[in-house]
């Protein structure tokens, strides 16, 4: 029996904003097992948040043991990010220096899926993992209540002196035919309303961006950067 994973990524900015103002990020490493995927959500009020979000997501999928030594992983993220940033200096306007000093912040969700269907997930903040079974929402983690999202989630900070926040961890078992969806907060809050995940699961992946954009336009999906990375786990006899 050959097991495979098909993936699809939807990513668009909040309405009224340009594509280059999108500050979520996603990353996927699906060349071999385990398949690793991550979504991150850069905090609106940080400067350089999009760059930090990309750094964190990429570092997770590129390092198989990222979660075994989280301090080292976060340290590597911070070093990579700092190397790309111009250092605060006297020539910067006062607000740019202050923002550089504050650093960037992002919520994070990473998941690692093995060929036998066993998966683990790690999260800081309010990005969500949705496990779909038989076309319906089987499990949502770490937030299952669509009303539980706030503007103040836990976040990973790029500041070298910021403490490592608690990383939440879970594990589960996917069966052939199941799907794992990784979503940033606005999409997750939308999908956690009754029947919405199941309804979206019935559509083809390439149809879903239009559905989510329409939901954003009519206000059902909160106006925020939106990211949904879907993994479909299947087995061929």
């Amino acid at each position, binding site marked *: 029996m050959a097991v495979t994973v098909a993936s699809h990524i939807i990513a668009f900015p909040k309405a009224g904003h340009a594509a280059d103002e999108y500050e979520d990020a996603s990353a996927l490493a699906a060349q071999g097992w385990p398949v690793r995927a991550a979504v991150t959500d850069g905090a609106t009020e*940080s400067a350089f948040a999009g760059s930090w979000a990309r750094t964190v997501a990429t570092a997770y999928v590129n390092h198989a043991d990222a979660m075994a030594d989280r301090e080292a992983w976060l340290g590597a993220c911070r070093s990579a990010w700092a190397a790309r940033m111009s250092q605060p200096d006297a020539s910067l306007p006062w607000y740019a220096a202050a923002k550089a000093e504050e650093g960037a912040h992002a919520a994070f969700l990473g998941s690692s899926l093995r060929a036998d269907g066993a998966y683990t997930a790690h999260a800081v903040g309010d990005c969500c993992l949705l496990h779909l079974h038989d076309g319906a929402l089987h499990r949502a983690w770490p937030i299952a209540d669509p009303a539980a999202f706030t503007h103040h989630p836990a976040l990973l*900070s790029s500041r070298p002196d910021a403490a490592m926040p608690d990383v939440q961890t879970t594990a589960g078992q996917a069966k052939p035919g199941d799907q794992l969806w990784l979503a940033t907060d606005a999409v997750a809050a939308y999908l956690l309303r009754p029947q919405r995940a199941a309804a979206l699961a019935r559509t083809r992946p390439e149809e879903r961006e239009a559905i989510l954009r329409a939901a954003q336009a009519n206000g059902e999906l909160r106006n925020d950067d939106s990211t949904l990375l879907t993994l479909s786990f299947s087995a061929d006899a």
Partner: protein
Amino acid sequence: MAYSAEISRTAPTAFLFLLDQSASMQDAFGGAKQKGDAAPSKARVLADTVNKLLQNLILRCAKEDGVRNYFHVGVIGYGQRVQPVVRPAPDQGATDVLIPISHLAEQPLRMEQRTKEVPDGAGGVTKRRVQTPIWFDPQAKNGTPMCQALDLAAQTVRDWIDLHPHNYPPIVLNVTDGEATDGDPLQYAQQVRSFATDDGDVLLFNIHLSESEAPAVELPDAMGELPDDEYARQLYQMSSTLPFSMRAAAEQEGYRVTLDTRGFVFNADPVALVRFLEIGTRPSTLR
């Protein structure tokens, strides 16, 4: 009213500060840690408070590409005169009083070196020198023409709403010791609050800096919570109730709020009042 319009560069909202610069502001601030002669004047506290509020607002809008114009900001001083105290920006779709926040960011009066306590990475704090922008120095002269100031505020928000009828409505923050000398400010406050965009009525919040050493009051929902002070009661009555979204934000920060909670602060730090306006996910360190 919804108060749910998204705040963005294409749909900014407006903050209009009204600053009491009358002679009575020379008196000592009762809410300070220092008492007696060591207490700072109300005018000093007002200047520090508003400089900090403006810095806070600008940093919320500062991104890698500069300061985004999520807000138009105006400052009207009232004392010897009633007049705007920051310069207008021509051709910006703003009024003569309200200017895009990026312009304010670029033109502080001066920068001052201040010492700030920051985490040292080992569980303690260390002191670091930071550049702090200053837009206003303390001023305290003549009477308190608060009614005139509220009247100018009403004209200002009306003109701004004509240009931005669908946006999140303007927020007017009046910082004062409460002693109006040119009439009953309540009716002028009602005039300010009577203007509205499609998204809601103009919000008027009051920040009362008093000589009284009565305990600080933040976001009261009943007169009974106020100190025995006629100006506190009047400013409370002038203040708008918090809209739903701000109540929710206040609740998340641990404030006890009800439908009657008003945007009124007595001898307390008012930064929370501008923090409750959500423009997106915010690290808790950004205050």
